[in-house]
């Protein structure tokens, strides 16, 4: 461990490499977390299957890439398919738990997460997969820092997608209806908004966002059937740290999480990388508690 820290000081360019990689994966964490915050804020559903949606999107892109379709084109296909899947999940499960207490939605989506990860495992096996983009890899500083082109493209795609979703929420009729429902579902209903359709759309939109995030993850990182829970926890960490309805917060928290995770993975070794995500969750929750206590409140 100390050796690794020593290495970071000896070769400062390594920091650049880690930070850059953290930025690239962090942008995707932020994207998935934005989807979680959307569903949480609008319909008060805490989706523990968030990460599994991401992994599903990843497998879609990967599967298409094995059939010769480039993962960049696989991304929109994954989004469309996941949108449809989200709609089905909403109609079959979420609609029935939406007005129950919060643990119901948490547990129902946990059950869904189990089903998804096990089905993926049965279908594709437990091996780690990557959707190859076959793009060039750029070297900087005499090869000390390397960045694959696909990572730049992924960052741009993530930013572009986020901008599109935000624009959609701000300017489209549907987006306005979603925001109205989030503020006061009953009032929205009285004003003639079909809240059930809004919820269905919001949940499906989140699934599509996850699909995109998953396709990006499959290109620049790795996917595996059981990695879903890790992504779910990452999304919760980001949303908890940023708070609901705080877009800049989500972006900053997502990027920081990416950086923090890769740093701790480097310093403590890869086997504790997952641990560092969970440890961050616990730290974020503890900090939130101290903050809330100052407001004489609990974290809820």
């Amino acid at each position: 461990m100390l050796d690794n820290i020593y290495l970071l000081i000896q070769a400062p360019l390594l920091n650049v490499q880690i930070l850059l990689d953290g930025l690239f994966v962090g942008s995707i964490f932020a994207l998935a977390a934005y989807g979680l915050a959307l569903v949480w804020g609008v319909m008060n559903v805490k989706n523990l299957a968030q990460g599994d949606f991401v992994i599903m999107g990843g497998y879609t892109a990967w599967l298409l890439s094995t059939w010769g379709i480039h993962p960049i084109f696989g991304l929109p296909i994954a989004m469309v398919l996941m949108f449809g899947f989200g709609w089905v999940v909403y109609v079959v499960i979420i609609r029935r738990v939406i007005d129950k207490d919060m643990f119901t939605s948490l547990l129902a989506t946990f059950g869904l997460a189990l089903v998804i990860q096990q089905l993926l495992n049965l279908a594709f096996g437990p091996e780690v997969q990557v959707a190859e983009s076959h793009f060039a890899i750029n070297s900087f500083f005499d090869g000390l820092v390397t960045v694959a082109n696909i990572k730049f493209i992924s960052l741009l795609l993530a930013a572009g997608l986020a901008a599109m979703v935000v624009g959609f929420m701000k300017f489209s009729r549907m987006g306005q209806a979603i925001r109205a429902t989030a503020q006061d579902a009953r009032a929205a209903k009285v004003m003639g908004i079909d809240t059930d359709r809004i919820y269905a759309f919001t949940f499906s939109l989140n699934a599509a966002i996850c699909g995109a995030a998953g396709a990006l993850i499959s290109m620049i990182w790795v996917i595996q059937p059981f990695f879903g829970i890790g992504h779910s926890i990452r999304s919760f960490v980001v949303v908890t740290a940023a708070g609901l309805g705080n877009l800049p917060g989500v972006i900053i928290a997502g990027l920081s999480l990416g950086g923090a995770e890769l740093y701790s993975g480097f310093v403590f070794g890869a086997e504790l990388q997952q641990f560092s995500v969970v440890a961050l969750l616990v730290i974020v929750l503890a900090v939130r508690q101290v903050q809330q206590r100052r407001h004489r409140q609990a974290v809820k």
Partner: protein
Amino acid sequence: MSIAQQKILLYAVILVLGIGGPLIFPNYTFQISVLWVMILFALTWDILGGQMGYNSLGNIFFFGVGMYTCALVQVGLYTDVSVYTSATGGANLRLTPEEYFIGLGLGAFAGAIVASIFAVIFGWVVFGLRGPYFAIGTLGFTLAAGELVGAWEWVGGGGGIALPVYPGPPDERSLLFNFLCFILAVIAFLTVKWMYAGQFGLAANAIRDDEEKAEAMGIHTLRYKTVGWTIAAFFLGISGAIFGNMVGFIEPLEVAFPTVTFGIFMVVMCLLGGKGTLWGPVVGAALFHIFKEVTWTYMLGWQWVALGALIIILVVFFQQGVMGWLQEKWPSRFGITVDENVVAKKSSEAAQ
């Protein structure tokens, strides 16, 4: 037959099954032992989850803590732990019966105490969290613990530890552990029954129904939550110690901190039987365990999919569980008085 007589009969049947079960079905001794552990899981989960509305996804943490603490005490009493865990094969520790039982007793005791201490410390950290944050926070603790232990070479890391070999014939061993599991489940049941009968039960229900009101009335909410969790942790710690010795070999992710198996089973069993009732967890654990043992081996990898689907179905369609359903059907049998006007109003509303 009066209600009191029915109760006595029920207890008698359970007692006969508990003691006689492994003698009548010697091939299933292990499964019967696991059933008692499952009942204990469900009972202790329900203290917070069902009675207080604090749905923990991480109670299995205490099970793992008890298991590892016990194992370390058992090994550490007689040899150097790091030498023992680094040795290939590991199980070169031959103990006399006296040494073995002293180690087991002290280990189980230490496991319970250490788990309880962890409950107090973690309670202090997580009980400011409500609802989803509590569930996810506890889940986080457990996942973290499993990974941390897996990376801790001194206790065997991901490879795990073999426990000292039982100094006697295998049949005697399995009977003994079966009996310990049974006794422990019975004590756990009597303990929670006693807890729910007094102020604790009402305070817990008050916290579940409206915690803000409970706080506004001055109820020591943090104290009740911590005590409830600590008692759960105490029993889970001992059960972990016994379970570890029963299977003979422990490792962090599958045996000691199995979040997605035992950790989730606890919740599912309580949902199935009926959260927040005394007998619900017992009924749910029995039903779930029997269902699982009968079907698990025939499902060829699909069992996990089935488990996930079962969770969804339970949550969506059968929230009240078996006992909750019975209570709704025959409220007077459970000592609930119902206002006829309200019933009439509700049924006419339903008719519309």
